[in-house]
């Protein structure tokens, strides 16, 4: 009989910790709009 190995749930603390309020950096382009977007 094939039994599925129980894989222990990855403990929360093993994930890469992200600082509170982590905001991914904006994409490098396009840049900011200086006036308005047509």
């Amino acid at each position, binding site marked *: 009989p094939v039994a599925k190995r129980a894989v222990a749930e990855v403990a929360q603390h093993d994930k890469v910790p992200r600082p509170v309020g982590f905001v991914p950096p904006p994409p*490098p382009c396009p840049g900011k*709009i*200086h006036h308005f977007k047509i």
Partner: protein
Amino acid sequence: VPAAPPAPLGCDDPESEAAAAVAVNYINGHSQHGYKFALNRIENIRVLPQGLNNDIIFLELDLLETTCHILSPTPLANCTVRSFTEHAVEGDCDVKLQRVDGILSVLASKCHSHADSSEDVLQLCPDCPLLASLNNTEVLTAVTTSLNEHNSKTADAYLRLLEIGRAKIQHHPTHAVSVEFAVAATNCSAEVAKVNVEACQLLPEDQSNFGFCTATMVTHPSQDLRVDCQLYGHQPGVTYSQPGQDTS
């Protein structure tokens, strides 16, 4: 271990902004007609290293038309970007630059400009007048009438038309045509021109004196004409070539 390639430049990085400033300055400096353009957004930047301290940079720029005619001595920083409700004109430019030892120079540029869509303007401002074609009959009449009006009243040089910059037609509550056009002083006073206008020629390059006029001609329900012309004064090295004689 070979050094890791430099991280790709972001469009808001100071180096990108510096390259964009050189590109916009080049575009305005090599344009012969229309208005000065200002940077609105750096769409994309690609840097191709060519060797030590030698890069080729490709920029995709989004520009916006300003209210300064290309012949105006006003510094670009003091030129107002035409607002959305004035029916803005956008410029899309691809520019190739070279950076050697930190010095930027433009190798090539190609631009395409287009007015914002009428739907966009009317959606935000239902009563805003829209851009009209520069060879529209009403536009040509407004330009001719207002320039004649100025020349009939001025004590200064007789002015000749160089080009029409932009025109808008409002249909209500009044029917009004607003025009902007570039002019140049001739070697005649307005008085002399009344007698023999054929003799009035544009001043030679070393004395040229360009200017700019704005005018509004109301035709309904009342008749009204307002025109304002300002000459810039002689600007050494600034020349004007009639449309169609442009060097690419």
